[in-house]
């Protein structure tokens, strides 16, 4: 799963088992989940 680091703005791949939630480039622990590029369809209710 790709996330975006809020400090260095790089897209990072997270290995949950090994590193936990941490940016491998800068060590920051706040990561954002990016919006998927697919079109989202839904009912307007």
């Amino acid at each position, binding site marked *: 799963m790709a996330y975006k680091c809020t400090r260095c703005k790089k897209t990072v791949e997270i290995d949950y088992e090994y590193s936990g939630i941490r940016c491998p480039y800068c060590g920051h622990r706040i990561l954002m989940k990016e919006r998927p590029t697919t*079109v989202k*369809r*839904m009912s*307007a*209710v």
Partner: protein
Amino acid sequence: MKFELIELREDRIRFLLSGVTAAFANGIRRACMSEVPILAIDQISLYDNTSVLFDEQIALRLGLVPLQSKDLDSYSRPEDCQCGGEGCPGCRVDFMLSAEGPGMVYSKDIQFTDPGVKPAFDKIPIVILGEGEKVVIEGFATKRVGKDHSKWQAGTLCGYKNLPKIEIGASCDGCGKCIEVCPRDVLALEEGRAKATNILECSLCKLCIEECEAGALKVTPVLDSFVISIESSGVMPVKELVAKAAQEIRKRAEDLDAKLAELT
């Protein structure tokens, strides 16, 4: 049946219907609320949403925008459409909403492919966008009835009450207590006696009866007369709304008639 108009505004009508049953008055009320088909945004496709609101929240807000149409009859309901409900220009109106912050996105920013379709009110806020925030939404509106979802409800505040009848007996001494206690100013003092001058406003609360020591007042509902008030959501003039509701009732009655004729 006797019809008497009390008040008519663009979005609101109040009339007196006499010589009908409560079932009929209720039928009109219910038809106004749930049987008159109108357009509302049905499905949306979100291409981008970086605003503070969730996608679902924006979808809900878009769905609830009332839509006016110059030629509503040219659209058919999806289940009655020649396309069989798959979606075609006969049962759908496409729209596009694209906005970038900073600023508020209003209902007037929704661009429909049919120039005859537009939001009933221009200034309905959809979402507020900050610097660099963006929404790009596409979708379509369909014509359905209020029974499916309240966003297709053409009549909003619809209600009726029995016409009140206030009788003032000979024992009235003109003390004025009933006039004082009445919350709706129905009664007034005339020639030393109480008189019902504003009877349509009476809600049959009977406070005046409790207050009258002489026991001169009698307030009763007229069982076959109804004060009906209908308010439109703005999608069509209220006169048209009531007429369409009556047509829907007629259509059902005719359907039943045809079905019964088949039996014999």
